């Protein structure tokens, strides 16, 4: 495409998966124990979307990447210390909760509103990227709702590959049932791609990119407007950790042949 793409990536923070998570009941519904204290990471699938966006932008001159994040701004600021060193983007901050118990519909309308305020965004060149699901709510619906609000009717979910073909069409591989891919070709932007893992490794830190990004990141954090999101109309009757803890039988000093027999009996049993 002449002039490249305008790629908007929606992505925010989730608690580091290595942390122990416990639900607590609050005045406005459930949340995580010590939620603001938990170390956070970029939501993994949104992260893949961001790396794919940066890669595409690099290969398509004239392209530009925005990262639109809804989350508590002090936590987003911490996240930027690492993410802003990896790839070039312009940040748009929507200062509000990033927890899993908010309603995706409310989140989507805040994100769509945030995208609509981006100065200079050419919607005819728009590729809307995001993760196929968050590691917090894990609903897998937010991006489609954002896309719908922006009038995008070419949408793809669980994308692992995007190829811009010589004729400018977009060839897209989506994860389908049974470990297979559905292959589709979309005529052109605008389109929405909700990414799965993609094909790219996490880019290494690059202090030069970090310095360049920080020029826009800090003002974006400063001018972030508060965003109200909750889960109106939802009543959580309970939120519980799974109770089941298994009594693990630890088998030591059993010869491999005997273990193998036990495993085969178990499989056949």
């Amino acid at each position: 495409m002449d002039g490249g793409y305008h790629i908007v990536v929606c992505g925010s923070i989730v608690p580091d998966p290595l942390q122990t998570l416990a639900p607590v009941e609050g005045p406005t519904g459930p949340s995580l124990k010590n939620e603001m204290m938990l170390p956070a990471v970029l939501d993994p699938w949104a992260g893949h979307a961001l790396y794919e966006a940066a890669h595409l932008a690099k290969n398509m001159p004239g392209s530009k990447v925005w990262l639109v994040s809804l989350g508590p701004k002090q936590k987003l600021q911490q996240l930027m210390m690492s993410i802003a060193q990896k790839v070039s983007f312009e940040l748009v901050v929507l200062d509000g909760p990033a927890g899993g118990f908010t309603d995706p519909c409310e989140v989507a309308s805040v994100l769509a509103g945030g995208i609509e305020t981006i100065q200079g965004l050419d919607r005819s060149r728009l590729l809307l990227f995001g993760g196929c699901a968050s590691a917090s709510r894990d609903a897998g619906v937010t991006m489609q709702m954002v896309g719908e609000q922006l009038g995008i009717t070419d949408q793809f979910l669980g994308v692992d590959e995007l190829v811009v073909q010589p004729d400018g069409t977009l060839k897209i591989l989506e994860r389908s049932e049974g470990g297979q891919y559905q292959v589709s070709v979309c005529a052109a932007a605008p389109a929405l791609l909700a990414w799965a893992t993609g094909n790219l490794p996490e880019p290494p830190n690059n202090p030069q990119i970090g310095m360049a990004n920080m020029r826009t990141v800090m003002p974006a954090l400063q001018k972030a407007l508060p965003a109200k999101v909750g889960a109106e109309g939802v009543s959580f009757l309970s939120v519980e950790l799974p109770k089941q803890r298994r009594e693990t039988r630890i088998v030591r000093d059993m010869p491999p042949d005997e273990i193998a027999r036990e495993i085969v009996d178990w499989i056949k049993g």
Partner: protein
Amino acid sequence: MEKILCIAHTQPDGNLPSVALEALGAAVRLVQQLDGATLSVGLIGQNVKPAAESVATCGATRFLSVAGAEFEVSRYASDAAAVEAIARSAEATIVIAPATLRFSRSLPGVVQRLKGRIETHVTGMDAADGKLSIQRWYYRQRMMATLTRMQRPWFLLLDGGVFPAWQGEPGTTTLENLAVELGENLLRTKVIGIQAPSTNARTIRPNADVLFVAGAGWTKKQADGELHLNEAGERILGFLANCNSSLGSSKSLVDQSVEGVPVLPFMSHLNQVGQTGSTPRHPKGLATCCHGEEPHAVGWRFINERRAINTDASCGWAQGKADVLYVADAFQVMAKVNELLAG
């Protein structure tokens, strides 16, 4: 009074996928539990008559359809238009659908158009006290919530393998076919087809009895100080062939690649289970050479019986996550397992 709509799309052979019958089973039970509730069935596909007849006796008062060649394919724009037309015609207050790629992709947009709400990955439904509540997991299978909501229409995408499938006699029925026009702007995407990932033949088998999970230990230096990648591949593929099991992987293993080529070439990210992978459902699972860290173990939430082989007795599996942990060398054990299964 709730107007319940169960929607399904046909698969390429014209039949309904088993997950659609599970969704129908759940919808039929819900109608029985909710006083005065009615059921409609909505079908999408090339020709949905055989599918409609196969579920004709489910008790639905209306059978709605959107049919034609453009509705056979899995594409957001056409699927969203079809579901929207059916949901509007049925005046549905609750829409129940199986979590196929087609519906996972298209339903959220329809919800937006109808100003409704949606819950996905639904793993339980109850209306015992006359009010519908559902169960779903949060934080990728870390915690389970039971919730209800006021807004309608309420769309529910049900996970596969959870609800008993509807069973009943086929019959005849009157199909109300809804005409849905697809303008050029809704046909900008062409579906080319289905493709297996370049790295593997079919190693992911959702209906297998056993999930075999390989971890990064298979590609680490072993007691002799050497790598044994060929043996690792043989043991893993040998077990898959002998047992017809499905293949899962830890993140660390599929992340390993040399210049983009996986260390074990039959593995791809599609095999990954866990926090950023899949959460498959199988009766049994055998973990080999993986450490059992929490982001990995969440991928095992729906595996009923779990055993693990690890040389390290203090690995994560020992912390109450597996039923049995064999402290042993997986190379040796799996060689013998394959021998016994083949013999």
